[in-house]
């Protein structure tokens, strides 16, 4: 089983969730109001009220087959708008 961590601007949240659904993931989890720093600069809490907003951190636990589909549905969005993603191993509890 795989664990995918996606971190990106919360403005793209709907797009990413749709892409996750399309990939057939069994579920996902969303944390908002996340700040941080990445290749595209810093996202600070002070900007939360502005049009740019903060980041969202989405976690997907899924099988290896879904991971492949996730890659093709989610990667273009991250590439176009920014955001990062990482994969790790996990097992069910």
């Amino acid at each position, binding site marked *: 089983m795989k664990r995918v961590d996606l971190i990106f*601007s919360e*403005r793209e949240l709907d797009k990413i969730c749709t892409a996750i659904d399309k990939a057939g993931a069994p579920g996902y989890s969303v944390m908002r*109001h996340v700040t941080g720093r990445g290749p595209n*600069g810093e996202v*600070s*809490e*002070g*900007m*939360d*009220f*502005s*049009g*740019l*907003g*903060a980041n969202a951190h989405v976690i997907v636990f899924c099988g290896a087959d879904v991971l492949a589909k996730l890659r093709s549905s989610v990667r*273009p969005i991250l*590439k*176009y*708008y*920014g955001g990062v993603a990482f994969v790790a191993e996990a097992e069910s509890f």
Partner: protein
Amino acid sequence: MDTSLVLQNLLSPPVLFFFLGVLAVLLGSDLDIPSPLPKLFSLYLLLAIGFKGGLELQHSGLAGQVLPTISAAVLMSLAVPLITFLVLRTRLDAFNAAAIAATYGSISAVTFITAQSFLGVLGVSFDGFMVAALALMESPAIIIGLLLVKLAAPQERPGGGEMSWSSVLREAFLNSSVFLLVGSLVIGFLVAQYSPSGVTKMEPFTDKLFYGALSFFLLDMGIVAAQRLAELQKAGAFLIAFALLCPPVNALLGLGIALLLGLAQGNALLFMVLCASASYIAVPAAMRMTVPEANPSLYISTSLGLTFPFNIVVGIPAYMAIVQRLIPAT
């Protein structure tokens, strides 16, 4: 007289709380207003300003200067980005130039509200239809911004297919600040017409609290604006100069139109402020979506870190001084 205007502005609670926020950052205090509290105040201010504008619009009706003024405001939100784009394009790529141009064609509701409060303190009247002008200046700027990108940089965009016109139009006309402002304006209008007791019962919320809530919000804006100052180095001297010169130039353009339209003192100041201010909510949100190639820290930092403080602190009283010189009090 001018210095007295400047002082009256500097020593008003909203501006003083703005300075307090700036000071907190400069001195390294850990004062912060955690999210989503600033959002509460910004939603409240939009709702209240829209509602009050609607009430007054119903009282004044749509005759007289209303339609000409609103049309002129929309024209300015189309013209300013075009002019600005030409200036910016001399130094920046098409994406950044278009995004910044759209930002400056649009408006800052909080600057407008602060100008209204300033007029209130001076006892100078203004009309509710100016809120309609405010509401209608965000969308055109967003659309022009995107058109500029399409025209000036068509072949360079790899993921451009992503962006559909329908989502751009939705972003332009239905983004949360335009939607809440226009919606509250219409509600204010309807309530004033059909439910006078509703007006009275809303007043303590939309009217009495307003000034204090604005002051509280400006405390946060001071913090945020000062945090942006650090980033300005990256923007460079050209953009810094742009962010400080654009407001007075656009304000003078606005003044010319106000004179042509024969606006009274209060409306003239608000018209100038609409032209002089730049967006940091609706337009950045739209630009992030439609022009992701542009660097957000450029358009946000100039608009929020320089243009906003400039207008709040120096601009509003300066514009008013000119207005008082050129337009007789009524």
